[in-house]
């Protein structure tokens, strides 16, 4: 029993769940238990979006130093506009709209990888330049109009089963799939191997470039899906709908116990970190603090977690 506990505590993801539990308890102590369940279902619903982007960012970051997808917010903004425009408010076109958002996301992934591969530039610069261009495409495509989602799609993104958002259940299943992809497939193992030592991975015969390419496509695709879902959840697309998800995705990866220097990933921790961050904001809201304090506390928590965890010794 004792050794089991010790093994549990040595898992990096445990802390994010403990943190989530603590802030939730602090919030319900403050409200004397009022709204305890509501906080969790609202937390689950909001955590869904950061978890989806967190998965995308986790795969990219695991590829090793310098790998990060800075184009996620622009991607999400464009995909939300594409999805809503294609759906055009009609229930019969939901699948087509989702498909279009997926294609837009994958297209962005292809663009990112081509820049990295053709120009031999660090991914962080490639995705940064790409995000400038995607933003402009989004502005000129969206033309500032806010298209409402079809009623069926809006309903789908907010419906709850016994207090648990359907979207959260779906995303849990999705993340389980990604855990299998990461730990049990050749692709996932390749990502981890490249993150640990790209040269060794290459010498071992791993298709380094193909794995990198697929990872950026995956990140793009997840960004696209997230954009469509966000537009449904918030009842309309907007170009800055994804702005907060660059920071959220990186924060989730860090707090969730994934190594920022690559080669070590943790899917379980993403949910803990996502819930932790959402519930932290809920707690601060119930305390009635101002937006400024909320930002400062969020920032200090992110710094505190990374400083406490410390980095690995330089290789």
């Amino acid at each position, binding site marked *: 029993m004792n050794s089991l506990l010790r093994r549990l505590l040595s898992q990096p993801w445990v802390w994010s769940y403990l943190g989530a539990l603590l802030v939730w308890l602090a919030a319900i102590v403050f409200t004397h238990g009022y709204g305890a369940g509501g906080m969790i279902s609202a937390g689950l619903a909001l955590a869904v979006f950061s978890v989806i982007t967190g998965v995308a960012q986790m795969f990219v970051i695991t590829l090793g130093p*310098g790998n*990060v997808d800075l184009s996620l917010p622009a991607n999400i903004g464009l995909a939300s506009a594409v999805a809503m425009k294609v759906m055009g408010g009609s229930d019969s076109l939901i699948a087509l709209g989702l498909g279009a958002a997926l294609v837009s996301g994958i297209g962005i992934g292809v663009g990112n990888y081509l*820049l990295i591969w*053709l*120009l*031999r*530039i*660090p991914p*962080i*610069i490639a995705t*940064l*330049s*790409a*995000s*400038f*261009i995607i*933003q*402009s*495409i989004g*502005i*000129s495509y969206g033309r500032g109009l806010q298209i409402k989602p079809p009623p069926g799609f809006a309903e789908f993104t907010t419906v709850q089963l016994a207090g648990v958002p359907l979207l959260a259940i779906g995303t849990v299943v999705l993340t389980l799939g990604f855990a299998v992809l990461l730990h049990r497939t050749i692709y996932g193992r390749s990502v981890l191997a*490249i993150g640990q030592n*790209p*040269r060794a*991975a*290459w010498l071992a015969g791993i298709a*380094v470039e193909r794995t990198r390419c697929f990872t950026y496509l995956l990140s793009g695709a997840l960004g696209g899906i997230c954009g469509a879902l966000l537009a449904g959840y918030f009842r309309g697309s907007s170009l800055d709908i994804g702005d907060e998800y660059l*920071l959220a995705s*990186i*924060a989730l990866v*860090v707090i969730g116990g994934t190594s*920022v*220097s690559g080669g070590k990933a943790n899917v379980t921790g993403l949910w803990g970190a996502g819930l932790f961050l959402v519930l932290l904001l809920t707690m601060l809201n119930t305390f009635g603090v*101002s*937006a*400024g*304090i*909320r*930002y*400062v*506390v*969020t*920032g*200090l*928590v*992110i*710094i505190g977690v*990374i*400083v406490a*965890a*410390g*980095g*690995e*010794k*330089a290789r």
Partner: protein
Amino acid sequence: MTSLAGASTLRAVVAEVNTPRRILRAILPALSLALVVAGIAWFNPRAISYFGINLMLNLGIPVVLATIAQMFVITVNELDLSIGNFVSFVGCVAAIWLRENPVLGVVILIGCIGLYALMGAVIYLRNVPSIVVTLGMLFVWQGLAVLVLPRPGGKAPAWLHDIMNLRTPYVPFPIVAAVVIAAVVHFGIMQSSYGAILRGSGGNPNAIGRAGWSLLRTKVVMFLLAGIFGVLSGLSLIGLTTSADANIGKGYTLLSIAGVILGGGEFVGGRVSPIGAVIGALTLTLAGTLLNFMRISPDWQVGAEGAILIIVLAARALINRAGPGVLSHK
């Protein structure tokens, strides 16, 4: 003996082959600036005048300063994602306190610079990625800016406004300022002996460490310099806009990274160029004006910045490919 001579001949040959490529790379930033200026002159010759340049370039000064701040951080292989929000915060402090309570304002700004130095120390001592720490600081600066200035307002101190609206004889003030900034930083970091150590600590930290220099100190010095130039950027921005809002410098994070890269800076390895960074920042500032004159919709403004970045990087990749290209993992 012969093998030694052979090696030195080989080195000489390699150096010779490398020289034109190095020159090409070095003039690339100036070339892109010249192209943008030529474009502006073509579409609107009247813009190339004392007043025209003043108008087009004065908002370039804060961008130049923020780019130099980012360059210091990039020199030691780190990245500052918080610089834009830091500039906003400095702007808010300047517009609120620097006018009514200068002592408090100055104390806060010095404290901010101290926080930057502390950030460098924490990043080095805990060996944590700067991208995450500065990401956290981004939230902190943003929160503090909102607390200081919940809604747009404030007023720049008169002296700041006067400095930024200086009328220099013959040459417009923004150009004078850019040249002075480039010269000061160039001599400080490219010509001085400690500057070489600072760059070396990005290029080969192990060697610098073994030679007895403190890597903690180089990291702290670079972040301290970044903090100082971030403060200067915020002050100059408020001197121009005369009032502040909590998001006034938000776009500077990406602009500053783009400016450093555009100016020929490498992402890792301590290879940076202050003169190039200043030119890069000015190019990005002028690109928007050029698009305006070309009657291209402002929708494509950011897109054009991205496109310029990609074109310059592509040109650089082409130049590099002429020689022995090495894939990172091979």
